[in-house]
């Protein structure tokens, strides 16, 4: 780990000013990903600006029943918050499915959104990786990729986004607020993570030097009837091989409203809009859920070792939407 400067910020404008336009400076939140990557030599900042003491630790309601939470709210506080659990159980579940109790106590909302892929080639500086070292190649395509992307990937990078929380946020149209030296801005989560294309090293649409300040979930009654389910290679404390955040409103056997996002299948949380369109106005049946999943997954481009994810995600869509249907009818 290279030597670095450390500054602690106490207000948002101060934090933004401390970071300035230094490309070698990083904001430090919980540090659970950044410090690890610094030890691995993947991140080599010259300056850390500690934002944990910023006054961004609140969870509040917005007009009409939405939720807004600050960037430094810890994952565990957000998961434990009664209003989060009431208004959007899938968000609480997604947070609880991530990492461990210790890491959730440290990790922040902002850091969770910005965490980087756990692809084993990315985290090993002795191996090529287009995301870490643009132009060096992607050995995962021909190498180990059984847990890599099946949707929206490119020949330049097939890594997946590791966040569970972001999958729930993608399903529920979260908006991410940030601050820059030029003032505040907002990005809907659908635009927050750009497509991979030939620039896998560009992971967010945030302007340079921007500090995430808050996340807003717009009002939507359907989120109260939601669920997050994660499949992984051990029962806990592991990244997903496939996950799903879903919310469903069924009346008289007809799908009135549905939200669906898939995790661990793409470089970003994958909002399944095609499946949603297929479902709306149709029957809430296993056959319809499977048809919707197939429509979404028609775009999948599996490689030699990750084709099982197509089956897995299809089965997960059917299973979770069926569970939500059954619960809703009780």
């Amino acid at each position, binding site marked *: *780990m*290279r*030597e670095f400067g450390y500054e602690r910020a106490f207000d948002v404008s101060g934090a933004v000013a401390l970071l300035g336009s230094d490309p070698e400076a990083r904001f430090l939140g919980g540090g659970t990903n950044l410090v690890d990557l610094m030890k691995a*030599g993947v991140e080599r900042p010259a300056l850390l600006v500690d934002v944990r003491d910023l006054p961004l630790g609140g969870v509040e309601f917005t007009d009409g029943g939405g939720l807004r939470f600050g960037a430094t709210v810890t994952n565990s506080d957000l998961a434990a918050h009664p209003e989060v659990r009431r208004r959007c159980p899938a968000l609480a579940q997604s947070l609880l499915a991530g990492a461990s109790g210790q890491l959730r106590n440290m990790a922040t909302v902002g850091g969770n959104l910005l965490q980087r892929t*756990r692809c*084993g*080639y990315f*985290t*090993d500086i*002795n*191996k090529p990786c287009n995301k870490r070292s643009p132009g060096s190649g992607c*050995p995962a395509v*021909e*190498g*180990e990729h*059984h847990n890599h992307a099946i949707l929206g990937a490119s020949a330049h990078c097939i890594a997946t986004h590791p966040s569970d929380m972001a999958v729930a946020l993608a399903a529920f149209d979260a908006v991410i607020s940030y601050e820059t030296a030029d003032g505040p801005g907002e990005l809907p989560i659908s635009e927050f993570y750009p497509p991979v294309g030939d620039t896998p090293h560009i992971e967010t649409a945030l302007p340079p030097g921007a500090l995430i300040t808050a996340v807003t979930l717009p009002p939507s009654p359907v989120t109260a009837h939601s669920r997050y389910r994660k*499949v992984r*290679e*051990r*029962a*806990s*404390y*592991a*990244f997903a*091989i*496939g996950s799903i955040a879903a919310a469903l409103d069924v009346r008289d056997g007809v799908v009135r409203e549905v939200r669906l996002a898939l995790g661990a299948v793409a470089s970003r949380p994958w909002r399944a809009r095609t499946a949603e369109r297929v479902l709306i106005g149709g029957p809430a049946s296993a056959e319809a859920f499977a048809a919707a999943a*197939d429509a979404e997954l028609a775009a999948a481009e599996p490689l030699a*070792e*990750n*084709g*099982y*994810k197509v*089956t*897995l995600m299809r*089965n*997960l869509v*059917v*299973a979770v939407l069926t569970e939500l249907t059954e619960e809703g009818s009780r």
Partner: protein
Amino acid sequence: MTTTTGVAAATGAVGSAHTRVEGRDKVTGAARYSGEVPFAGLTHGWLVLSTVARGRILSVEAGPVLAMPGVLTVLHHGNAPHVETDYLGMLGRPNPIVGLFQHDRVPFAGWPVALVVAETSEQAREAAEALVVQYDGEPHDVAFHSGRSDAYTPQDTPMVRAETEKGNLEAQLGSSAVVVDAEYTTPEEHHNPLEPHAATARWDGGRLDVIDSNQGSSWVASELAQLFSLAPASVRVRSEHVGGAFGSKGLSPHQVAAVMATTVLRRPVRVVLTRRQMFSLIGYRSPTAQRIRLGADADGRLRAFDHQAHSLTSSVHEFVESSAVLGRVMYDADAHHTLHRIVRLDVPTPTWMRAPGEAPGSFALESALDELAEKCGIDPIALRVRNEPETGPVSGLPFSSRNLLACFEEGARRFGWADRDPRPGLRREGRWLLGTGTAAATYPSGVGPSTAAVTAEADGTFTVRINAADIGTGARTAMVLVAADALEVGPDRVRVRIADSDLGPAMIAGGSTGTRSWAWAVTLAAKELRERLSPGGGIPPEGITARSNTAGAIGALTEQERHSFGAQFAEVAVDVDTGEVRVRRLLGIYAAGTIVNPLTARSQFIGGMTWGLSMALHEEAIRDLASGGHVGADLAGYHFASNADVPLIEADWVEDPVPGDPVGIKGIGEIGIVGVAAAIANAVWHATGVRHRELPIRPDRVLRAADEARRRATGGARSA
């Protein structure tokens, strides 16, 4: 049920539960492990490993690094002191990896090429990362599979007999009513003790003093003395607390690096391996590909038995994963063949890892037995009863004791086996398909020469000196209990000192031999002492000491098949929509001689079974063919079971007296893992109707296998 034979319970200490004597130190954080003993002027060494999988070092550009803050030295093949690797150690020739920095050849990715020493660990780490090493890379080959044309049959060694053969295998297979012929594979697995390997070395009054984490400090001291051409008495190695070992903690590059650096710098040097470095420096379990052919009469009696086990080794040292040995103990047949084949690749040398041989071998063999039971239409336990041998199937020697069937009987009763419907794929609970499976277990009961000293102190207490290693087994506590009974005093009057090469040579903590070996020496010394203590006689201030050496007694042991046995039972739940497998129950019943401390013994059995679960479902190191190194060489990339994966596991034992044995203790460190992966795989078949012959049984493999089974069932038509 707890046996109290063998080292008999004069005071009843052996056979009754005692919490660990060092337990308080461990729960308060007071216990110091090897990287935690402070020294004035301590310096920190950081190893630099090769980034190419084969080739030659062109240059080590030490200059810029030596100018970095705090850096004291950079050792590499251009300046390192000579070490002597041409010797025969306790376990054979040394692995060339301990011949640190002696030449410019790189035989695999992660080979140690330099050591950077600095004042602080942060400085050492950064300097090690900054060190530029230029290589002339060569093409490498790391692809392991059973079909390799360059595989060969290794020479026999004292450790492993490569091949055994009797009868006409092909003829017996041909005349068998039922034949199972299948290949089973297990992946590369790593020990990953929670405490990384660490050593601190310094010169102290003309002696080399090494604080280390190992499985035998006499062993490591002797190897270091030979490597550095030192008089044995001038090397002291201590290893007070060891944070897990599982076969990986012998001599490794870190001790050699620390000794080299302290010799050069004349300051204490600590070298701690990173988790990532452990993946290439300390050994691992070779992947295996095992073909098993069983031929049987319709009633399941074996006519033909063939177990051919392939594994790999490095280009610089030979290690054979002895997966085919357990058939030589477990099952007889008219024709019987066991064979090991290995291939040399550009990878690190594998080594012993908990139940070496038996762990992967039992997955293959005990899975095949289950397949045979299915084909014969008989119960898997009945099949094993039918094939229970009278004497060693290959050796013809009598068993010292063999209570395998008692284990199955007791296990079946407790597990509720009698109620089992043998048909697969019938039980469902919500999204889960349920199934049960069983497997047999065995592991040799070995012993090694040891010395011990027992002192009657003037204050009425006793001090036992035995160079045992407590790697989490409860060895310290076990020796207190053994000594208490041999001395006929309460355990509170006995103190035990272990893990210091100055105590004199003793067997290592490995291969389930430790407790048997040390207990023997301690018992002999204690008995000798009792004979020397006159009733009512005084004890001088320096105490009265009796010593023992078991070398002669061990040499006089009659030749027998000496093994522990066990029966494993598993219940699993499988979600075939997601591929998730959860183990719901494990039960292991063992026949393992005298159980010294039921509390810690149960922990050790359950720990072994947890390893078996972990092996069945999780563990797999992935080697990248392009780079020759690992992908995900850390504890997020290499999964072993987390708490949530492990259900209530029960372990117990049956009476297992060993007639005529001077110790009665068999050793229990490995047998818990043996057979568990097979029991789980057999249960997965019972749940789903699909056989899994490739470990670990990952969700993607379950999904793929289910897809394939569906395709086969629909006559080859690909289902949507």
